[in-house]
């Protein structure tokens, strides 16, 4: 058992560290918040970070397959705009609308995967291009911010659960448990990790390499659509340019959460912590009275420290050849 714990911690120690840092930041945030620690403050804090956390989860899955998704922000914007048209009306219409929105995210992600696999185009370029296309569609279906989204659903997802837990976090965790946990425990999840760790070995082992990659991007698109839906519940409208700052922040959240961009391993939970850390920094700056313009500076510093932490291994290496591995 101790051996198992040891291995488990060694594999996930950076994700654990991200959660510890988040815990510290959150305690400090609640401490300096003028309204103190209350469920209202906690829910507001969670709502700030949930949209980015959804994207970070999707990005993590793509990064684990040794890819990257630069279209994740545009997919979020596109699905957000779709939601502002479709997620309205009676229960049946709502269910139908949400299903279409999530399906759209899945289709966008699958297209990314197919472009990468069939076109043999590097992920960074492929998703840069598809991202621009998705942004274009978002602008077509909603040229200027507007539309409306069901308010009951909004209150349900952005409020609190029985005064104990922020419901956004609960929704986030439930959806991760529904859409990622089973995959991660099935052959498909293992194939995604295997492809990211060594594509050649995965091919030689007879794994379905192409299917695993497309699946990773599709899951990325699905989680981006959750993000688009959630931001809709927050703002009650659709905005075609909402995704712009989110793409790079999702990659930052992945790295802060302890997942290396080299693929093969990663922690979805760590990335959620990474996303919440980034958002907590923003809130802290607001409440400590630091100039809000300094926010990128602090976020950048945290990102550098996180990356540097991952590179400390290199300081212990005395054989220069191993540095390159």
């Amino acid at each position, binding site marked *: 058992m101790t*051996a*198992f714990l040891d*291995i488990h911690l060694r*594999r996930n120690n950076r994700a654990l560290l991200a959660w510890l840092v988040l815990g510290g930041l959150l305690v400090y945030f609640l401490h300096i918040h003028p309204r103190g620690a209350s469920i209202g403050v906690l829910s507001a804090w969670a709502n700030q970070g949930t949209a980015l956390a959804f994207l970070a989860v999707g990005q993590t899955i793509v990064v684990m397959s040794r890819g990257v998704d630069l279209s994740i922000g545009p997919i979020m914007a596109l699905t957000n705009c779709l939601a502002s048209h479709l997620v309205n009306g009676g229960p049946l219409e709502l269910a139908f609308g949400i299903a279409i929105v999530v399906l759209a995210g899945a289709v966008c992600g699958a297209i990314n995967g197919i472009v990468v696999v069939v076109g043999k185009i590097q992920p960074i370029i492929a998703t840069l291009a598809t991202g621009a296309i998705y942004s274009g569609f978002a602008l077509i279906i909603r040229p200027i911010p507007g539309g409306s989204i069901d308010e009951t659903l909004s209150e349900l997802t952005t409020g609190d659960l029985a005064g104990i837990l922020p419901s956004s976090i609960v929704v986030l965790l439930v959806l991760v448990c529904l859409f990622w946990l*089973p995959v991660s*425990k*099935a*052959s498909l999840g*293992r194939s995604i*990790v*295997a492809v*990211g*760790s*060594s594509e*050649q*070995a*995965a*091919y*030689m*082992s*007879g*794994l*379905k390499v192409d299917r695993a990659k497309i699946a990773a991007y599709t899951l990325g698109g699905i989680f981006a659509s959750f993000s688009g839906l959630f931001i809709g519940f927050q703002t009650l409208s659709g905005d075609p340019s909402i995704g712009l700052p989110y793409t790079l922040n999702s990659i930052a959240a992945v790295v802060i959460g302890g997942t290396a961009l080299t693929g*093969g*391993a990663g922690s979805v939970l760590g990335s959620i912590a990474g996303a919440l850390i980034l958002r907590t920094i923003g809130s802290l700056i607001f409440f400590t009275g630091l100039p809000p313009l300094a926010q990128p500076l602090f976020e950048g510093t945290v990102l550098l420290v996180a990356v540097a932490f991952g590179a400390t291994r290199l300081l212990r290496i*005395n*054989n*220069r*050849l191993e540095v390159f591995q």
Partner: protein
Amino acid sequence: MTEGSSFLALTDVTKTYGGVNALKSVCFEARRGSIHAILGENGAGKSTLMKVLAGVTQPDSGAIRLQGDNVTFANPADAAAKGIVCIFQELSIIPDLSVAENICLTQPPKTAFGLIDRKAQDRLAARVLKQMGCGEGIDTRSRCADLPLSKRQIVEIAKAIVQKPDVLILDEATSALTASDVGPVMDLLRRMRDDGACILFISHRMHEIEALADTCSVFRNGEHVSTFASGAKTHDEIVQLMIGKPISQVYPDKPAEVPVAPPYLDIHDLRWGDQLKGVSLSLRPGEIVGLGGLDGQGQQEVLLAIAGVLRGTTGTVRINGRPAVHRGPKGGKGSDMRIALIPEDRKTQGLFLSLSVRDNLTVSMLDRLSRYAVVDRPGEKALVGRMIDLLKIKTDNADVAVGTLSGGNQQKVVLAKWLATDPKLLLLMDPTRGIDVGTKQEIYRLLRRLAGDGLAILFHSTDYDELIGLCDRALIMYDGRVASTLSGPSLNEHNILSSALNLSHDNSGRETAAPTAALAEGLA
């Protein structure tokens, strides 16, 4: 189809890579319940044959029949579905997954919900490792990237046999194993044969083939030359079949006179971490000095330390009488040191596989070939032509990607690239590993000639035959120290082995006989 008749048959299989015929109309048959050894030099077509059978590449023409039915494989998964599984040299290990996850990667045990059953997976992996008889000390939950090479190779073998293949292909699968693990793996292969499997066994180790194979097939230049029952031909006859002509003397004559020039390289009490524990040696221009011993006794680290790749070494390294300032390979090729290091892994450290032969040959020389930072094209062309001639590199022209050349020719390019820098000290890390006999012989002659012209050569080899045949002196290392220096008549197999095991020379009685035999198996 009756037992014993051909189970797997190839007819007129041809495969061409960029103008080179890797397989030429090969007809080949293998039976159930037999271990079939495949022999040949590098570039003879063994690996291509195996890749065709495993579905890694597809033949240009010809047919593969399995139990009488024509089959085609689009990828390794197809071949595995038909019961053909290949063991590569740790090519199919996923570094970030655990031992159990790797072993069960292709067909993981599932729970009722279709998810992977981790407990069953751990049990299955542990059972397979136990069945192999050499998996003790491997924790099925540890990450494969954290295992040493020899253990990763065991995982690779376990991963193949867990699929219970009808046809098992081993491509040099035993070369990375430790001596003590080779025996159990050979027993396992015999048991699988007795259970009716068809086993194709590719190896360069003659004694393993002699111990294991029922039938041998020799390939040469992409053609199937001969098939005979194991033991029907002598060692010499087999080697002749492989190279197509009788071998003349493999090693060049050693010079009778000992060089008297002052040492070009002088090392005193070199230490690094717990891997080098006080190494001293000196090397004169014109000398070829070997570094041998069991794997991982510090031989590689000595060469890396001289080349300035290691940080935090202590002790003195003098080059040409002056203390060496360590600046890595970049500083080493400067006019004050003139060091050339031929790295261990030619595919990752020695070459840029996707770049042309020309680019590879001149990459370390660009500063000297350039005027005002512009590469002198005629000068470059002349140099490339000279190096291709000097090393007899077999290539259509200098513009083909170096990755398309055979292993032996690739190694020649690595050598040429560094010889072009006109070094005074050549550090070689196992330069003949995985290279065919003919190319080896050419490289030996070249090294001896260069030594005659005043080059100092430090030669790390895992092949004790090479140390004896080529080197003027051999330093045998044990646990980070030079255990003994052998030269002249004392440079022989017995002394190398006993030094490598850190036994004193005169104590060659009964106690040393058993480990020496085991070691001989491991080193050969």
